[in-house]
């Protein structure tokens, strides 16, 4: 632990402003770009240029006058304007000197270089790095970090990352996994307000970035991949004080690790990392995800849905084609504590009056074969959902389409009409039910292409799209957990 750490604004009240130069820098310096070949600093320069960074770029080089078309400077002390964000990728031993030579003109140093606290011989170097930074009024991200993805600032470390600014703010203690989170997340519709690969957390750690995201108006939901939180107490207290202000989803590595303490009591022998994180989740309302897929699915739900504090999502309705699929889903939802209650008589009567073809179930879960769903070119779905919403008033509806079963039997407009019918129902009954869509594909390229297009249409209507009913269930269980926490733990 480094002593004398200058911390960010204590209450988090000004955290959004404090980190503005990091997430939306006006000036970026790059240390570790070559004038003769492409090394990591050049790659970063090219990435932010292609990504559309609008501010000034200052390559730092002891001898070169120009790098990749930009005027180079011998040190950060020589740049025309002070530097908001400095990307540093040089040998570990030189990093502290780079910061010292800035003479206090560098706000955030993002240290990509490794060879610090992650190896025993680098521990002292890391302490020196932080001390030097603080002496020069500079804060450090990293070292041993992969980079920053900040659409609002035009900064990215991920190839082909989306330029769209979204509501999901992420902290990652693994750079590689951070790349996966962006690359995979955006393909399923997750839109980011930022992602920081925090590396060794020598100076700025998960708690401080949590404070930022809690305060940041752009961020609606927070995700964190964590391996080790040295300031566990402060992390807990920050989460607890936030009173579930924003959903926080944690993917925690190393939860099953056995405690290394030699226990002298029953209690000591029973306590492990897993118990502590479960406790933290229950006391603060943050959600623990088990896998990367679950993590992204849950973030996608919170990005698009508006959690209710007064009515946790417990009563779920399922509607789609596939009898066996519905039965299996009923079991899976029950295991996650989500109920799929039978409809009341009014709903059943209303559905019966629709005279749906034989083979269509008129109770929850509604199994409606393609033959039913293609009636009136898909408009039938609106009547079915209307009956559900008018009388049974589910807390959430998951519509699932086995897309392969439609292909060849219906014109493409039918599936699209089904989606549009669902969107209209959502508008007609505002705040009634969370609406999630499972677009089930057998993997055929043509189906996948339709799915990709529908996913786009759905996301524009703030509808999260999942591969299977089980993915939607995991997301809904997380929403329910958060809503229940808010209802039971947060005083109005």
């Amino acid at each position: 632990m480094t002593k004398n750490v200058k911390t960010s604004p204590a209450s988090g009240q000004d955290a959004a402003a404090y980190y503005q130069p990091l997430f939306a820098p006006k000036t970026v310096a790059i240390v570790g770009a070559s004038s003769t070949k492409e090394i990591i600093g050049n790659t970063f320069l090219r990435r932010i240029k292609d990504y559309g960074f609008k501010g000034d770029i200052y390559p730092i080089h002891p001898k070169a006058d120009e790098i990749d078309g930009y005027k180079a400077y011998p040190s950060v002390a020589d740049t025309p304007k002070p530097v908001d964000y400095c990307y540093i990728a040089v040998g570990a031993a030189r990093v502290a000197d780079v910061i010292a030579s800035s003479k206090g003109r560098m706000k955030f140093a993002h240290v990509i270089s490794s060879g610090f606290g992650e190896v025993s011989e680098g521990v002292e170097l890391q302490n020196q790095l932080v001390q030097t930074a603080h002496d020069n009024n500079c804060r450090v991200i990293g070292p041993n970090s992969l980079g920053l993805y900040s659409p609002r600032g035009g900064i990215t470390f991920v190839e082909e990352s989306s330029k769209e600014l979204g509501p999901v703010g992420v902290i990652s203690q693994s750079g590689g996994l951070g790349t996966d989170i962006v690359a995979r997340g955006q393909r399923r519709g997750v839109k980011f307000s930022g992602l920081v690969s925090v590396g060794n957390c020598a100076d700025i750690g998960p708690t401080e970035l949590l404070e930022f995201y809690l305060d940041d108006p752009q961020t609606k939901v927070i995700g964190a991949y964590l391996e080790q939180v040295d300031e566990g107490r402060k992390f807990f207290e920050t989460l607890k004080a936030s009173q579930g202000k924003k959903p926080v989803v944690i993917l925690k590595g190393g939860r099953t690790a056995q405690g290394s303490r030699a226990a002298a009591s029953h209690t000591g022998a029973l306590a492990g990392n897993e118990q502590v994180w479960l406790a933290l989740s229950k006391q603060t309302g943050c959600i623990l995800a088990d896998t990367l897929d679950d993590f992204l699915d849950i973030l996608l739900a919170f990005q698009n849905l508006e959690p209710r504090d007064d009515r946790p999502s417990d009563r779920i309705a399922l509607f789609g084609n596939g009898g066996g699929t519905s039965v299996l889903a009923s079991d899976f939802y029950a295991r996650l504590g989500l109920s799929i209650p039978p409809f009341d008589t009014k709903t059943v009567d209303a559905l019966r009056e629709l005279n749906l073809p034989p083979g269509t179930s008129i109770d929850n879960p509604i199994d409606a074969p393609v033959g039913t769903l293609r009636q009136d070119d898909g408009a039938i779905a609106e009547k079915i959902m209307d009956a559900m919403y008018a009388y049974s008033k589910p807390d959430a509806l998951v519509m699932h389409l086995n897309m392969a079963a439609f292909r060849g039997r219906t014109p493409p407009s039918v599936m699209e009409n089904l989606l549009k019918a669902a969107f209209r129902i959502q508008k007609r009954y505002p705040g009634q039910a969370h609406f999630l869509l499972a677009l089930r594909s057998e993997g055929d390229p043509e189906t996948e292409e339709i799915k990709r297009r529908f996913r786009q249409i759905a996301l524009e209507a703030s509808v999260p799209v999942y591969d299977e009913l089980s993915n939607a269930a995991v997301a809904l269980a997380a929403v329910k957990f958060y809503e229940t926490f808010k209802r039971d733990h947060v005083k109005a």
Partner: protein
Amino acid sequence: MTTPQDAISAARKDGRSALDEATGKQLLETFGVTVPQSIVTKDADSAAKDAGGLKFPVVVKVMSQDILHKSDAGGVKVGLQNADEVKDAIATMAALPAIKKATVDGYLVEEMAPAGQELVVGGLKDPQFGPLVMVGLGGIFVEVLKDVAFRICPIEEIDAREMLAELKGAALLKGARGQKPASEDAIVDVLMKVGGDNGLLMQLEDDIAEADINPLIVSETSAVAVDARFILTEQKSS
């Protein structure tokens, strides 16, 4: 009356890494947790006089740093009906090999708790998160099934209730299988006094490394800490 801090300092001064049972129970009492009425007596001869004020039946337990598992060593005798039986029990104990070779601090004579269900309440100082509080049902539930719930201190009342609700054996507390129910309010009260904002674990955060209240006997109306073990933190070099 000695303060918790005094008792801990005294134990440290004696070179102890844990509080003896009597001191541990005094500590619990200071924080409002009910413990059985008890006395500490030196030996069999002093027992009859010292135990005279207690309500029989009583239990006798040997007090020694050298004996970790009192029952295994033969150092616990329950259901003693009068002062003579107490005297005989202590005399018998003192002659047992495991007790004879140990340094005995005395004998704890205490009233028997009203019948009820056995629970365990624990505490632990986590290096990252600070004090944790634990609850579980006693016996095989804790030892074999590891059916326990943890929370980070300080807990609120709703946390205490949710801890009990998440135990797999929660139904037993409500009186399954013809048993009498255990008072949820009484357990919650103990959890708050141990793990709450002004509770023992928060107030003595620097001194308590691990704690076991085992068993906590809970009847329909009350919860009594029948045994308590407090392991002290490693003393900081000053």
